[in-house]
């Protein structure tokens, strides 16, 4: 069935280092969304990418959607302790059916 694979599962960085998480789908996505979930919290919507090759930035976060609309990445520049949490991608296959990746848990050492 339709699946979204996300790597890495865990990432531990020193504060100030960069961080990247990657998502890949076996089939073409209509759009992809990114969420952040803090420990004990619920997923919080960050951004949605719709167009092939789209790149969006939010301060230190850069989101990319692949040309084939099958993969996406989230890159954080110069991580801070406030970036700690689990980052999920969620792929939409028909604008209704959402498939979440397993998430990348980011820890930041001050």
């Amino acid at each position, binding site marked *: 069935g339709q699946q979204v694979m996300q790597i890495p599962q865990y990432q531990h960085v020193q504060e100030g280092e960069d961080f990247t998480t990657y998502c890949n789908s076996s089939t073409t996505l209509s759009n992809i969304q990114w969420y952040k979930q803090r420990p004990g919290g619920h*997923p919080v919507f960050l951004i949605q990418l719709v167009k092939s090759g789209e790149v969006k930035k939010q301060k230190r976060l850069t989101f990319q959607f692949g040309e084939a609309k099958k993969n996406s990445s989230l890159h954080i520049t110069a991580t801070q302790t406030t970036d700690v949490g689990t980052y999920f991608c969620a792929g939409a296959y028909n604008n209704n059916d959402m498939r979440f*990746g*397993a998430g990348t848990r980011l820890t930041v050492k001050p």
Partner: protein
Amino acid sequence: GAGVSQSPRYKVAKRGQDVALRCDPISGHVSLFWYQQALGQGPEFLTYFQNEAQLDKSGLPSDRFFAERPEGSVSTLKIQRTQQEDSAVYLCASGRPLKGQFFGPGTRLTVL
């Protein structure tokens, strides 16, 4: 309302008991999703509503799971004859097309 609300926040059920989980979406949001999230995992899609219509229920794990949204606002997820493997956090999310989803705090279900 200010956000998506869910009740109860915590539910402990004995195996075999029926439970009902409620979701109050953000007013005006057409889309409503239910997810199941196990510890350390991503949310697993259960079902999707557009207004009162249940357009996709392919993620419901068995016929013990049933969801409804009769008036296109509040939704209820019902689990009959709960089993231990049903223990998880059940998340509800609402949204507008192509605008992302806003999640509620979830209901943590523990089946003993």
